[in-house]
């Protein structure tokens, strides 16, 4: 791994002041460090944000669950408050990677990285999340721009993610047997007025499946999406699954999620 300068920021202000075109924020490092080791990414400066106290912790109000960006997956999966308010979010966190990854990896890091197979982006879309940064608030629907791309500007730091508490919800993942990344993951959330069906792993970026959302908003039963023939033309094909298989898996996982709600 090429050398860089390590900085530990005390607050968001210092972190964003240290940021430049050749820097990256370091949270759990579960993607950043392997990418740097493989030479896929090089930075002059790594700005550690884990020691910024404000960025860790979980707050639950009547309508929402707000999780600090540097909160680890293990903290989300173990939180009694999250389990009570949005059980599907707690079980999503419990299914990420392995225990050592969950002991280090953070929610903010996962979202900022926007891996097309990551779990948390689907939670953001399904639970109408608001991404709080040091500069503004961004709706999840406008945050995830494309493969590994987000609406974040250089030096902009995610501080917290605010999830809307749904009436019912479930996340169902068909994991890669080795990495536990989603080959396809579907997060179904029934809110007062409508239903979101967020899909990860299937395309280059997480998305809300409008056809399934519409069908489920009309009738919240897995029978209303049974046998749905999704367009697989934009779906990923790789050694693990073909686009056609993924299209079929999306419906299967969505049905499972509805039944588990």
């Amino acid at each position, binding site marked *: *791994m*090429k*050398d*860089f*300068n*390590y900085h*530990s920021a005390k607050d968001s202000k210092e972190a964003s002041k240290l940021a430049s075109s050749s820097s990256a924020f*370091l949270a759990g*490092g*579960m993607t950043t*460090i*392997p990418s740097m*080791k*493989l030479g896929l990414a090089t930075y002059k400066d*790594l700005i*550690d944000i*884990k020691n910024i106290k404000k960025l860790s912790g979980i707050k639950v109000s009547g309508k929402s669950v707000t999780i600090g960006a540097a909160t680890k997956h*293990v903290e989300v999966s173990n939180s009694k408050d999250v389990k009570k308010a949005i059980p599907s979010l707690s079980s999503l966190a419990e299914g990420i*990677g*392995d*225990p*050592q*990854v969950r*002991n*280090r990896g953070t929610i903010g890091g996962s979202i900022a990285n926007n891996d097309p197979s990551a779990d948390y982006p689907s939670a953001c879309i399904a639970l109408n999340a608001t991404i709080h940064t040091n500069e503004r608030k961004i709706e999840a629907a406008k945050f995830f721009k494309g493969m590994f791309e987000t609406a974040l500007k250089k030096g902009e730091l995610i501080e917290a993610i605010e999830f809307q508490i749904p009436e019912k919800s479930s996340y169902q993942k068909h994991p890669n047997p*080795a*990495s*536990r990344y989603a080959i396809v993951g579907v997060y179904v959330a029934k809110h007062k007025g409508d239903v979101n069906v967020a899909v990860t792993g299937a395309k280059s970026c997480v998305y809300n499946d409008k056809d399934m959302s519409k069908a489920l908003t009309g009738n919240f039963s897995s029978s209303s999406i049974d046998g749905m023939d999704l367009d697989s033309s934009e779906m990923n094909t790789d050694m693990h699954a073909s686009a056609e298989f993924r299209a079929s898996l999306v419906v299967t996982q969505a049905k499972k999620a509805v039944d588990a709600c």
Partner: protein
Amino acid sequence: MGKISLEVNGRKVEKEAPDNTLLSTFLREHLQLTGTHIGCDTSQCGACVVHVDGNSLKSCTALAADVNGSKVTTIEGLETNGKMHPMQEAFKKLHGLQCGFCTPGMVMSAVDLLQKNKKPSDKEIRDWLEGNICRCTGYQNIVAAVKEAATKM
């Protein structure tokens, strides 16, 4: 370059190291604690698992600078006065290893599991060892060893 201060296996250490030094490199090359193994070096195999402030992590995917000031326990820190830790004893007794390369990480993960769950089921043990890969044993004897150790710890 920065100063890394850690408490490793109960001993305070302070060394200068470049900022890009991984915890696994720091342990092996700066402190000569070569019990921590580097297998895949891409945070998948778990041979490099150590404890930092009581939690297991993959030391090949953490910067030494990042865990500055922490308490680190490696496989060398498990024995007491030359007597093996119950988990090590159980791995030995039940043949939870063949080539032994994955064993340090496997043992460190398993010890962390029992710290958090005193009587894990077979499924809980298998789920927990998700991030530790063994290519020799087929895992049966590893799971048996963890269960045995759970009765002794």
